[in-house]
């Protein structure tokens, strides 16, 4: 589904964020990318969402070369991907309901669908009593669950999660990882980054280890070796 070929990213100050990285992710997989801070995990994800442009190499989503997309085509492409961040990035002046509704509106869904689906998904992540709360009125774990709900609401083919448990306590981490596993079981491909050994063990799927911009290990069964 995702094919990264010989990807290199140099920043203008000559730091090498990615060094000749190649990686393939099949449909339905749950891939965890691990590595120290600054190893290049986030850069790989930003390449897939077309937030960053590679210095060399290519990224394919199915048969589409992501970086050949015209500016006008990028929003449509991004709707195939749900994104979750460490700091959840909810829109601060929109309620939980509106944050999710916004993603549906952006994808051109009808008002009827929005009214039906948003409470449903919030119930699924256990927030059916917090529909009309603003992000600052929610706990870290609750915010992250809203952000996951927003990522999956348009039934994307791929979920990208950048350190989704980075700010959470162990219990919330457990819940959130449980949500991702459930999403994956329903058939959505998930790519998740973390530097938390416990998370890797919890997921127990394919683990890709990145160090200094290179992939140094690619294990079929979850192992955190660094």
């Amino acid at each position, binding site marked *: 589904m995702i094919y990264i070929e010989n990807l290199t990213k140099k920043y203008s100050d000559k730091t090498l964020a990615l060094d000749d990285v190649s990686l393939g992710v099949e449909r339905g997989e749950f891939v965890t990318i691990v590595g120290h801070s600054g190893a290049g995990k986030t850069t790989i994800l930003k390449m897939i*969402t077309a*937030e960053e442009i590679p210095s060399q190499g290519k990224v394919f989503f199915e048969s589409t070369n992501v970086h050949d997309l015209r500016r*006008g085509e990028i*929003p*449509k*492409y*991004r*709707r195939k*991907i749900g*994104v979750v961040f460490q700091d959840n*990035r*909810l*829109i*601060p*002046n929109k309620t939980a309901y509106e944050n999710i509704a*916004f*993603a549906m*509106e*952006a*994808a*051109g869904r*009808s*008002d009827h669908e929005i009214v039906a689906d948003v409470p449903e998904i919030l119930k699924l992540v256990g927030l059916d009593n917090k529909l009309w709360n603003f992000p600052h009125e929610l706990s870290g774990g609750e915010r992250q669950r809203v952000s996951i709900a*927003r990522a999956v609401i*348009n039934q994307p083919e791929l979920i990208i999660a950048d350190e989704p448990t980075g700010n959470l306590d162990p219990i919330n981490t457990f819940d959130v990882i449980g949500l991702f596993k459930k999403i994956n079981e329903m058939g959505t491909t998930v790519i998740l980054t973390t530097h938390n050994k416990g998370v890797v063990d919890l997921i127990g799927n394919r683990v890709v280890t990145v160090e200094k911009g290179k992939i140094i290990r690619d294990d079929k069964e979850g192992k955190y070796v660094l």
Partner: protein
Amino acid sequence: MNWINIKRVSKAGFISFWRNGMTSLSAVLVMFISLFIVTSLVLGSALSQSIIDMLKEKVDINVYFKTNVTEEDILALQEKISTLPEVKDVSYTSKEEALEGFKERHKDNSLILSSLDELKDNPLGAVLSIKAKEPSQYEGIAKFLEEDGVSISSDGSGIIDKVNFYQNKLVIDRLSKLIAATEKIGFSISLVFAIIAIIVTLNTMQLAIYTSREEISVMRLVGAGNWYIRGPFIVSGIMSGFLASLLVLIVFYPITIWVGSRTADFLAGINLFNYYTQNFFEIAIITMGVGILLGGISALLSVRRYLHI
């Protein structure tokens, strides 16, 4: 962008305007100041224009005819003068009317009146009053009157006693210069202030939207199209402009009453408040139009820089 998107974008714009209370308020206040300046300039230039028009109206040149000239010759000359493109109006005052006017003006002075009675004949000649479209054109008209053949009666003698252009020349010249300078300076000042207003508004909008840059990047990553992201900001900007222009229009009401009552004498009878209420519709359209454009365009320009992700 279809209808449902327009509806969603406007709604989002309204809601975010309301929820970002302080930011919206500061945008409205800054726009208020900008629009206040713009409206003052519009009002000021309209007012100075009407003062200038009034002064222009007071300037004319009079052609005094010799007492023995027949009315036909004068009317023939009036006909000729009124065909000149520079001439706005020529009015004829006959000998008798001139005498009446003279008596009227000096009705309290018995010495003049009695000495007038001593004379058998009417000592006054007929007069043509000429008004030009622009004060600078009087010189050309005066020259025309001096040309050979223009002011000669049917029997070949000159009919004009005198043209008072040369007495009035100084005043007319000064007035033309003053009017030209006022228009030029007024235009430059308006331009400078309008540019300042635009820059200040743009900066405030940029600050307001700067606080939303994270939000914009999230919208991009959720897959929202550019117009879907811009839209609500533009709607908020338009709302700020609209509210600010309403405020300006309201505030100008007491201001023009106050200023009007104090300057009516000095402005030769033009009352600012009357002017404001009589031309309210035009002023309101200009102020709101400028406010809405200023708000919308500065929001558009400000969002643009955060849309590159």
